């Protein structure tokens, strides 16, 4: 993963931290990352706003935005990348909004996953498929 190729625009009092993970199968890498983040707690489906294009205009730089009101942290994973970890945004008590925006690189069509840790210690997760296509042939 080449951090310098990524433009990170963090909004509010968000701090980005890149998670580095070992290398077994990708699905389990994603599951492992979520388990590590949640400490194995239950994760509710939905509850995180994840804005990402349906089809990426350029797989090398895909704009995404995550937000979850009342979150203390939001972890973003690209489930189909060789290294799924993208970033974890931590929001301190002084954060005006629990929202972050960045651009990520996607190796191919895959799910982008956002997991939020709420102030009460609960977790919520939203995912969205972003298609990376070779393009052409538009009517």
């Amino acid at each position, binding site marked *: 993963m080449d951090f310098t190729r990524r433009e990170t625009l963090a909004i509010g009092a968000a701090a980005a931290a890149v998670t580095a993970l070992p290398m077994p199968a990708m699905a389990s890498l994603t599951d492992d990352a979520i388990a590590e983040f949640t400490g194995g707690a239950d994760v509710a489906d939905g509850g995180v706003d994840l*804005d990402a*294009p*349906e*089809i*990426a*205009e*350029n797989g090398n730089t895909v*704009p995404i935005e995550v937000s979850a009101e009342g979150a203390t942290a939001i972890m973003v994973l690209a489930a189909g990348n060789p290294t799924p970890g993208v970033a974890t945004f931590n929001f301190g008590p002084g954060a005006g909004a629990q929202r972050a*925006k960045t651009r990520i690189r996607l190796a191919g*069509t895959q799910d982008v996953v956002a997991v939020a840790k709420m102030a009460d210690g609960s977790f919520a997760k939203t995912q969205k*498929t972003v*298609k990376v*296509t*070779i*393009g*052409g*042939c*538009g*009517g």
Partner: protein
Amino acid sequence: MISRRDFLQVSMAASALYGASGFGNWAKLAAQQALTQDQLLEFDTFGNVSLIHVTDIHAQLKPIYFREPEINIGVGGNKGEVPHVTGADFRKLYGIEDGSPSHYALTYNDFAALGKEYGKVGGLDRVATVVKSIRAARPDALLLDGGDTWHGSYTCYHTEGQDMVNVMNALEPDAMTFHWEFTLGQDRVRELVEGLPYDALGQNIFDAMWDEPAAEFKPYEFYERGGVKIAVIGQAFPYMPIANPGWMFPDYSFGIRDENMQAMVDEVRSQGAELVVCLSHNGFDVDKKMASVVKGIDVILTGHTHDALPEPVLVGDTILIASGSNGKFVSRVDLDVRDGRMMGFRHKLIPIFSDVIEPDADMAALIDEQRAPYKAELEEVIGETDDLLYRRGNFNGSWDDLICDALISEREADIAMSPGVRWGPSILPGQAITREDIWNVTSMSYGEAYRSEMTGEFIKVILEDVADNIFNPDPYYQQGGDMVRIGGMGYSIDISKPQGERISDMTLLSSGEAIDPAKNYVVAGWASVNEGTEGPQIWDVVESHIRKQGTVKLEPNNSVKVSGL
């Protein structure tokens, strides 16, 4: 008390009746050889607002033939739903009599025979007559252009869209949105948009660097008509940098952005909009889904996928209007807007039969003025055809079979690829093929015909990728084109499978051998989205091929086997 939803449905039924009786009449009138302009334009003015919709004209200033698709497959929730109904099924659905003008205008069967009977369609001088007639009944009718206007002809290419801008300006639209216009390059688009005497709209046209609304395009505009405050929100083609060369307009980003669409609807409603119209280039199925996701749009004027529907499609409280392509149709939608909401509508899809509708003299002169400097080049006869040449359809059209033949023979290739675009008029058997006709199906700002080597595996990747852009069951992942056309190679496709599993039995037709994933094949194609593509222009390749043929004769193309319907 009748609910708003019920009211719309009642009105829908009335509209359907109106439409059905209209079709029946045309059939009888045609039988009596008495189809007249008055009958085509007949409309009992209704309510207090009129919308006039044209879209996907593709720079067709003059009347043309345009054959509607035979194969137009719907997937997922759109399986068997309009606009994915064709031919006899379409006629049955709308009560259209066989052999009637509507049969000819809206379905593909017996196209060559009916074309000789009913003549060419379209022509912006005829469209001008229709627009003037509607304005005579409703002087403040809104005229909205759904885009794909500044692309698709010899004169449009050579004037970089200026011919179309001049002619459309004379038609005096109120607003337009965009797709192929951007392939003129962002500098030229900005130059033309800056000089437009009407609004350039697109809520999903964003600045690529900052991911915020682009300054040159307003998301919406208000119009006060018939005492009604109308908001028109633009929606440009969402997948421009993917389906077309993004390097030609690097400053812009698009996407569906339905959350922003909802925010715009809420914003205009909060500012007092009583009627919200979306002028869209999403494509029909994308608009249908968007209508179910975004609340508060009254009318979506759809475009991009070139569908022509004689009745609106209702999604919740939103009506969708599909007005065809290439200048073949004009839609008129009359609305009754009272107490801040749409209470009912009346609609007519007006087919532009060029031999029935009188050309507007001023517009005809203006069109000829645009064409005059190029007259000799346009009219030069290159060859003729024994077979019907058409493009529309999910898998292949005879125009593309001819283009693929040209690529294989002129570029000495094993396999040819032609993009599955939906524009391009038809040529009847026995007709001469002029240079203009060739440009009408090939003209674009990235027409270089490449010749390169591709492995069998990569060819499959391309087919799988394009197939998923058409047959992904979620419309938001569809780009609205047809399947890439292939020459020199056959294949099978199971459209019900996921990406990567749809394509099989790839066969090199010249040898009958299976395509070897590891082997290199010489592939010739055109319309690459990659910067720096080299090769002769496709129209020159096709012209050279047709000259050598003299008279075009095509074998029926049965090389694509479709399953999973």
